[in-house]
């Protein structure tokens, strides 16, 4: 039975994270992305086994790109989950529940940790395999963390889109746009978000992780700020915004000059 004092929201967010994470892992959109990631990893493994002198730099990019694509699919999956109430006409009945929308956004954001963990385990497997066959720089181990934070950040993008542009069409459009600026002949376009661009020195790689994490928090704060902004969200948004600017400055000055002009 109820007591009169309102309990804190932390346990609600934790319980939501577990429930949402399970549903994200079961979603067909996530599995589609995972299939692409596994395909890319398969291509990488095949080339690593087939070539006479395979190298990490030349061959591992297929795995990196495919996991980036998987992260984009997570963004769409999170977006679909966040739009569930609108899609199923359940907005009104959930407004009558005590957990505010910000708690649900936080729960879904934390739920994205599940696909982040699963894909990172696979990335870890790929890196370990590579280490048995190729000369893999030690700093490449950070790719596992990069991938997790990238998934989390793109999940937060899915949340922002669902909150501020609540149309089921927006996330696929953004996903496709991200895909079209994929690395290839002009990898500079992805420098700012793609892990491989900075996986050369420990310092830059660490800054990149911090940058992606700050972006994730910034997007999550913006996503939870509707319908009403609260002080906590403002503080998180401001702090993460500052962190984004600082880390981006370091990254641009550290990565872009040797590689030519950056798009972002």
């Amino acid at each position, binding site marked *: *039975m*109820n007591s*009169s004092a*309102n*309990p804190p929201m932390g*346990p*609600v967010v*934790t*319980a*939501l994270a577990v*429930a949402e994470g399970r*549903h994200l892992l079961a979603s067909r959109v996530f599995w589609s992305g995972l299939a692409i990631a596994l395909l890319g990893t398969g291509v990488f493994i095949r080339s690593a086994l087939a070539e006479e002198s395979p190298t990490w730099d030349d061959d591992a990019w297929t795995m990196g790109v495919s996991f980036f694509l998987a992260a984009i699919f997570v963004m769409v999956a999170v977006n679909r989950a966040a739009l*569930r*109430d609108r899609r*199923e*006409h*359940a*907005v*009104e*009945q*959930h*407004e*009558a*529940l*005590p*957990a*505010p929308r910000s708690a*649900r956004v936080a729960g879904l954001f934390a739920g994205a940790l599940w696909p982040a963990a699963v894909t990172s385990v696979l990335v870890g497997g790929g890196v370990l395999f590579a280490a048995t066959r190729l000369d893999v720089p030690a700093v490449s181990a950070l790719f596992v963390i990069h991938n997790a934070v990238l998934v989390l950040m793109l999940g937060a993008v899915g949340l922002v889109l669902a909150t501020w542009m609540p149309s089921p069409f927006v996330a696929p459009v953004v996903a496709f746009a991200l895909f079209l600026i994929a690395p290839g002949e002009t990898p500079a376009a992805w420098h700012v978000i793609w892990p491989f661009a900075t996986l050369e020195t420990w310092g830059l790689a660490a800054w990149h992780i911090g940058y992606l994490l700050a972006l994730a928090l910034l997007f999550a704060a913006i996503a939870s700020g509707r319908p009403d902004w609260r002080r906590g969200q403002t503080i998180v948004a401001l702090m993460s915004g500052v962190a984004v600017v600082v880390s981006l400055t370091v990254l641009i000055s550290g990565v872009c000059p040797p590689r030519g002009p950056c798009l972002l």
Partner: protein
Amino acid sequence: MSGIRLTGVSKRYGRVQALDGIDLSAERGITGLLGPNGAGKTTLLRVLATVQAPDAGSVELLGHDPADAEQRRSIRRRLGYMPQEPGFYDNFTVFEFVDYIAILKQLTDRRKRHDEVREVLGLVELTAEARRKVRDLSGGMRRRLALAQALLDRPDLLLLDEPTSGLDPAQRLRFRELVSQLPNRPVVLLSTHQTEDIAAVCERVVVIAAGRVQFDGAPDALRQVAVGRVWISDRPNAQTLLSWRSGDGTLRHVGEPPSGADLVEPTIDDAYLLLSGSSGGAS
């Protein structure tokens, strides 16, 4: 425990005055809400469910003011709401859906929450369907699922909008048993077009028409409104408010008596028809 206190509550949608100075209070027990389509019942329930603020008037629910964010949260923790058109997550199982709502109701202890979910699913006889996807449920089962989520955590204020529409007769009777035997005897507001349900379970009935309270009293007192105004005869009469042919071939008239007609005992339907004013209003 304080129940519901509404004073001079008004709500307007554009040119439509949905609620027009409603005064209403309710304590523990079941209050039925009757009224024609568009009378303002759903708007009233939405105000009580804290999903909508009135344009004017004051609202006090369970001793709290829903206009204040913290107090609103306190109300919502003790509130069960079954909207007229509930939404479901079709790709969740029945158990997962109710469990999800239970989390949002701040039942965070996993074991207790799952016990609670199992209990409410048992109350609405959906235990056997717990592992089925919501998309595979029949209309009546979905209705019961909506009722189950409203019953979570034994709410002190239970708002039910058309809970028995789509239920088969046995389920309707089961609903009456369930709602009349809720263990903590909450404040229940039951909006329905089923006057039999009102007569069967409500201690009190409120009739709303054109956004105003037209009647507030016991179901039997509502029936008394029509005493002396319901007749049967074997001939039609254009003067009556409404008349229809019964199964035994006689015509039942509500309103002015036709010549040679015999007075009969009224029902709540008859009284409701007279209060709502016209046959059109009772559509």
